[in-house]
């Protein structure tokens, strides 16, 4: 029964995460390896976030930033498709468009305030770098949503309750946002900011914008004759109405 040939060769060593949290970005040689493709970017986001942060501080930022944006858009479109399977029909294309569009729109709306808060807190950062960190946050959120997609699909096939599915997607979105914001927080810790309170305020604003986006772009989970709602509502009122139904 002893057969050493049946065992494949060992996997190469895992990328190092050994750089201490407070060490300057790029202090680990592994962080200085350029990010060349989309898959490398996804793997770096999950396993070597400091590598992504370091690359985003090296000019030109454009290549990594674009890769992160492509990941964010592609992954949110796929997750949107899973969301759309709940209602089917036009929602199969409307939900992906709304989720990817809503995520990008929320980021675009919040980008100026993030830059201002960063500068006010004394961080040494350029707008392109802030945009890069924000796209990293979006990409990580969208990648995590892909991880939730199989679970969301199972539930979407076994319930007809819009409120239940909405709550589920909201919970997944908030978990993804937590990890995305954690990435941003770590990135900002390396910008020599005097205080982190500005960033904390911005995080609250970003979450509020995301939540409002779920109402401004409704319906994302249910169905409607119109692509966008005619009636303006605050997200709390919209959710209360959904729960009453």
């Amino acid at each position: 029964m002893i057969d050493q040939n049946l065992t494949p060769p060992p996997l190469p060593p895992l990328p190092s995460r050994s750089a201490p949290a407070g060490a300057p970005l790029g202090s680990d040689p592994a962080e200085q390896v350029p990010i060349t493709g989309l898959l490398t970017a996804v793997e770096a986001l999950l396993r070597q976030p400091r590598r992504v942060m370091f690359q985003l501080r090296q000019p030109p930022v454009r290549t990594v930033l674009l890769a992160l944006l492509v990941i964010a858009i592609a992954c949110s479109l796929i997750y949107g498709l899973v969301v759309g399977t709940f209602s089917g029909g036009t929602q199969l294309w409307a939900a992906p468009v709304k989720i990817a569009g809503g995520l990008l729109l929320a980021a675009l709306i919040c980008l100026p305030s993030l830059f201002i808060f960063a500068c006010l807190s004394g961080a040494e950062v350029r707008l392109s770098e802030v945009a890069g960190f924000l796209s990293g946050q979006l990409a990580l959120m969208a990648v995590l949503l892909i991880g939730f997609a199989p679970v969301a699909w199972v539930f979407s096939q076994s319930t007809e309750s819009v409120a239940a599915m909405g709550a589920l997607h909201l919970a997944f979105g908030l978990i993804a946002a937590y990890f995305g914001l954690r990435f941003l927080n770590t990135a900002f810790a390396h910008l020599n900011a005097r205080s982190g309170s500005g960033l904390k305020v911005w995080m609250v604003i970003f979450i509020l914008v995301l939540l409002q986006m779920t109402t401004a772009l409704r319906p994302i989970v249910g169905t409607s004759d119109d692509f966008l709602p005619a009636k303006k509502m605050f997200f709390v009122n919209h959710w209360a109405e959904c729960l009453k139904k």
Partner: protein
Amino acid sequence: METTFAPFDLRQVPVLLRGELEPIHGWIERWSVGRVCFHVAVICVGAGLFGASVGWWRAPLQAFYTGVKLPLIILLTTLGNALLNGMLAPLLGLNLRFRQVSLAILMSFAIAAVILGAFSPLMLFLEWNAPPMSAGASERLAAHSLILVTQALVIAFAGVAANLRLLQLLRRASDSTAAATKVLFAWLAGNLFLGSQLAWILRPFIGSPALPLQFLRPDALQGNFYEIFLSALKRVLFG
């Protein structure tokens, strides 16, 4: 150490149960399709036997159905959450690759399945002593409840034992106990969340005496576990 066992060597089972970290860690580091198949086979046999013993009280056909469904839930949960679990591990500080994560989870389920399989004769003995399906309605209901509670206790015991072994393995693979604990709880939450729903879809397992014998209920895909649980809780609390 790990090379002393071929992928289908049954002597791996006691090693898994004892939680011998050296060989198990080696198995996780070296991906082997044969070993994955072995763990899947262990899950199918162990959970299948337990499922069959649970369903036996209702009817032999129910035993067959439950014997198929219980391993299916475990495998579908592993598959459905593989991507998420693989992402959560590095994000929470555990530097394991996607394949290693999947293998670690599969191994913990294999441990649970072996424990479940070992309890199947006890389950059969309990059912042999319980009032049969031909008994009166109240006696049948009492037997159904007894099987339900016993099944839940056995599954809980197997789950706890398997997760303790998994935690030991994660601690070994990580520099930080806190990270290992966080990852374990994140995986547990995800697996319980999806597993409960899959179990709901694939019901019945024991087979209610008042309902016909079926592989799936006609309303299998209507409602979800949590909606039903919440409405039941509402009824209990507010009448």
